[in-house]
């Protein structure tokens, strides 16, 4: 279990640093970015693990994103970088890529489907995955942005 959590944290950290470099975060923020992503993603991993808390993916993502948001606000003065710089790279490993993929696939198959039975099946697949995907994205964005709104004083003086 510990190995799985650490593996998840390592992959999340590597993904965050890579995506941080795409959005040109300052070099001094790389370490913080990786650390925040590792903590955030392993939090979600633990919350969703069937042997532990077995939480639903939407609630687990909301909680983990909130943790990322709070950490980003409090880490931002340490690297003198706006909190937003940490958010996207740290949240990206939680993007529901497979749900989006299945939803899009369902839509295409739905349009190409020849029978009503197939249409119903793929429409269900499109709607179910699409709804979960949208809900996860909203949960992520709301939970991660709220701490910046809540701790305005800290968030907007980070670069001082």
């Amino acid at each position, binding site marked *: 279990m510990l190995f799985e959590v650490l593996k998840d944290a390592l992959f999340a950290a*590597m993904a965050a640093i890579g995506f941080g470099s795409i959005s040109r975060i300052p070099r001094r923020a790389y370490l913080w970015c990786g650390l925040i992503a590792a903590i955030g993603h392993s939090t979600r991993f633990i919350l969703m693990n069937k042997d532990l808390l077995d939480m639903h993916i939407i609630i687990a993502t909301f909680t983990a994103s909130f943790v990322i948001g709070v950490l980003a606000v409090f880490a931002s003065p340490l690297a003198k970088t706006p909190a937003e710089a940490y958010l*996207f790279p740290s949240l990206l490993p939680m993007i529901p890529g497979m749900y989006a993929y299945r939803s899009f*696939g369902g839509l295409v*198959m739905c349009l190409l489907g020849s029978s009503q039975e197939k249409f119903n099946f793929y429409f269900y697949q499109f709607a179910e995955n699409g709804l979960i995907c949208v809900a996860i994205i909203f949960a992520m964005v709301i939970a991660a942005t709220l701490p910046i709104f809540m701790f305005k004083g800290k968030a907007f003086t980070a670069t*001082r």
Partner: protein
Amino acid sequence: MISMTQTSIERIELHEPNPYLKSTSRLSSKEVCLFLAEYSVTLLGCGATCIRLEKNINRMAKAFGKKVELTIMPRHIHMTVWDEEDDDRFTSISSVKSAPISFSLNTRLSQLSWQVKDEGLSLHTARARYDAIASSDSEKPWLTLLLASLANASFCGIFGGDPVAMAIVFIATAAGFNLKQMLVRRHVDTRVVFFICAFVSSVIGATDYLFPTSTTPAIAVGTSVLYLVPGIPFLNSFSDLLYHHYICSFSRFTDATVLTACLSGGLCLGMKLMKVGMF
């Protein structure tokens, strides 16, 4: 007599700028407005949120002894700077600079706004520092390429991809991202860039089906295009929504949705070409 005094102070300030000397001369609204307008279009263009732009601009205007009102539109910024003690006021409308997202530039411009307030920088010094910041925002393309490829391969690992799938995703991302860098340098339309890069990455990602040892080819295809997800516009869109900047919020959301549609189109075409089923 008063005007002569002002002129001499301005002359001293122009020729011998002292960054730690608080400017005592009355600046004209026009020169302050022109500087703030240029600063704001650069800051918004590099991916800052509307609330950060408002705070930075108000902070600097106050430090220069001026009042400012600004209307932030998706492609333009409308700004009026005035002096409370006389009728001197100036309005400008500037086009937002289209530039790649850069939190490094965002950070340094935000730091500049605090320096103007805390160190009492003169307008001359602030502009000199702004010019230095705006002209020095560069990246090492090979380093970004390497880190982005590693990041996407890690993504594949997070989603349960096996080592073969991760290696394929690394190559698919490296090829797609390199192509993206080349097309962006040639000023190709962003939507076309997203479509082409998603197509190339998904075709390479789909080659994972050719390896009999690979057990997760669908994950390789699905994650090979994730480096293109326009996450920052989505996040900024929600931030703008929270602070009632609905027009900018809607614009950013629409931009991100259009890019996602282009990405999906490229992915779909790649999968069709490689005869890869959706499930």
